[in-house]
């Protein structure tokens, strides 16, 4: 659905994005991660056509966004980091304005506003002015504005920053709800624990370069899984480890290795741990522990940042 190829963007003599390429399929929730100044906001603004593309190409549903930006606006919802709200208007008027300016020949304006407010969980505050709302509620109004025209793609720039834990959990639920409605989401954030709740993919940016684009374990959103297994033994000789790797050559990727522990990634085709266990026992290895390990997003991120 979203295809970014060789995207570069220079800003104020700094390369904000450097030859970034990736593809995102329908229905994904992509976590866009990276330190400050890594190019996350620039990337989101380029996809939403708010920033001009200097080099490269972005296709959305096969449409080049440089050729038909106005067509792309109809299927994209974008929420900037401070939500873009009119503080002196009521939530109802904010949503009415956004609906009138985002939906062609809008019919049933009241119904659309009401339904969106319910979906975003702001219906009970609908007649309050925005400046009386908490940050969590303002963020929900922002999301309501971004989805009022029922876009296929929603881009959220740091939606969770400054939210309390309760509001973050509510945000996670809302994002999963949007995915279930068929939307594709790209969410940039610093709070990795919260992204872990709903992301199916992760893109890591560092100094404008894409350094990792990977699928994630996620049971809530049905993301694909990686079997990471930890094996602890009395002693793991070099010979045993080598025969272990050669026997399961195509199925195993050693991640970490010491004389007593191995952490490895197991291909999905070989899912039965007992096959491994019987092999190790045959080799005379005194196995102390063998178990699947859940590596969280933070581990993945830190590991990637250290490696690259």
């Amino acid at each position, binding site marked *: 659905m979203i295809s970014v190829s060789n995207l570069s*963007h*220079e*800003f*104020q*003599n700094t390369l904000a994005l450097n030859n970034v390429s990736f593809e995102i399929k329908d229905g994904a929730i992509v976590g866009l991660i990276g330190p400050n100044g890594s190019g996350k*906001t*620039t990337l989101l*603004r380029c996809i*939403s*056509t*708010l*920033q001009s593309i*200097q080099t490269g190409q972005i296709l959305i549903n096969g449409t080049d966004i440089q050729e038909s*930006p*106005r067509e792309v*606006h*109809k299927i*994209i919802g*974008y929420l*900037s*980091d*401070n*939500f*873009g*709200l*009119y*503080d*002196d*208007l009521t939530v109802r*008027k904010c949503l009415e*304005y*956004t609906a*009138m*300016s*985002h*939906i*062609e020949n809008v019919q049933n304006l009241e119904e659309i506003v009401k339904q969106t407010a319910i979906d975003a969980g702001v219906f009970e505050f609908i007649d309050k002015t925005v400046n009386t709302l908490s940050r969590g509620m303002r963020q929900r109004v922002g999301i309501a*504005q971004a989805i009022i025209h029922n876009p296929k793609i929603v881009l959220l720039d740091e939606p969770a920053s400054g939210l309390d834990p309760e509001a973050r959990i509510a945000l996670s639920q809302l994002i999963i709800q949007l995915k279930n409605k068929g939307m594709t989401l790209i969410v940039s954030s610093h709070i990795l624990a919260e992204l872990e709740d709903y992301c199916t993919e992760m893109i890591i940016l560092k100094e404008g370069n894409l350094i990792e684009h990977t699928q994630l374990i996620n049971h809530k959103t049905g993301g694909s899984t990686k079997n990471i297994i930890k094996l602890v033994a009395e002693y793991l000789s070099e010979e045993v480890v080598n025969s272990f790797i050669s026997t399961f050559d195509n199925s195993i990727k050693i991640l970490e290795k010491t004389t007593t522990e191995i952490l490895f990634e197991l291909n999905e085709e070989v899912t039965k741990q007992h096959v491994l266990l019987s092999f190790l026992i045959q080799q005379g290895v005194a196995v102390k522990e063998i178990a699947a390990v859940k590596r969280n997003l933070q581990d993945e991120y830190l590991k990637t940042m250290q490696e690259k």
Partner: protein
Amino acid sequence: MSLLEKNPEFKKNIWLEISTQRLIMMPLIILMVILLASMSPIGNTYDKLTNISYFGMVVILLFWGSKVAYSNIIHEYNDRTWDWQRMSILTPKQLMVGKLLGAPIYNWYGAFICLFLVFVFGVMGDNSSLADIIVNSVSTLLLGISLLSVSILFALLKISEGNGRDKLKTGQIFILLILFCMFFNSSAFSFMYNRLSFNVENFDTWKIFGENLFYAIWAIIGLHQVIRRELNYKNKSYLWILFLLTSSLVKTMVMMDGMNKFFDNYLFVYFAILSVQSIGLFYLLLLIEQNELSSLKILVRKIKEKNYTYLNFNAPLWSITFPFIVVGLITSWCLFDENIIKSNNSFAQKIIDSISIEVGINSLQTLSILLSLIFFIVRDFLIMLFLQISSKKKRIGAAFILYLFLLYVVFPGLTSTLGNHTILQIFIPLPIAGSFLFPLVECALIFYIIRSKFK
């Protein structure tokens, strides 16, 4: 009602700007001022009240209104509500009307109250004809449209420098805006000033009206173009060229009215105005247009690729303006000799005397002035480019103005007190054969520095 229903942007601005309290406050304050003025024993009461109402219209619409229109865009940008608008399906026309009439709606409201009072007191005063009152008032409203449009246009150019994250300050560019409008529509401002001092006998109100109408139309076209660009539409550059050519034509017609005793050659005046106007705009555009190094690099790449379609849509306006400076200067220089000096024009002779040229006008000396002028402009452009590479983005405009002030005011001032014309040639064009070599060397030097720094 129709505008309210069909234009969400206008409707939103009404929600934001209008309240019962504000609706009552405006006429109340205006009436109080009128009441206080009527109590003053000086002058004819009706004339005085007409003038105060006119003054109110000028202040509320032109000054306060343009400030509101400008700040509105900057606030929309800072609050990121501008992003919603850019990604909306609003047409450039809807957005333009919404911004021009909607954001300063309270100022329009106040201006129309004052306009009504101008009519009432003008008719009661029996001092000027109703036609004159109408033409003057509409003229001021047109000036209001121009000023408000240009305010919004400047604000949109300002926000195009932003990266979508940092906040921008309001008001920094405002002095430039007022200067810009005065530069273009000076007769309207001069009329406005004199109108406030009861001195309008020397003004042709219809001429002022015509000029105001012309610039109001162009201000609206300009605003429409900039909004189109913000909404990701592509603009062709021919409109800017048309503006440069027609604006010079209008100025020529206005000027020749009073100057024909000095110059009888329309073509000379036309090209002289074209060059002066283009020089003014060139410097202004260098300051306000987005001249990021990355954009310039893309521009150079597209020129090398001979991608004329890209250039037609994306070339910065200063690059389109520069050829008009050169054409205007060279043509007026040729025509000055051919048609003016030979006819023993006394005014032209005064100009020649003032710059101490003792030889023929088409001599090496005057050719040097012409070439120096062009090379100085190129040098200043290179200084701007140098600043783009070296400085922090926020300080480029201020640094550029400082450089210009040093190069054209401080250093020449110090040098001329020493009476050293050789050194003076480094800073200003002088009628000395070969003086153009100084700015040429400066250009080459700055170009070399930029090139090595860029590498």
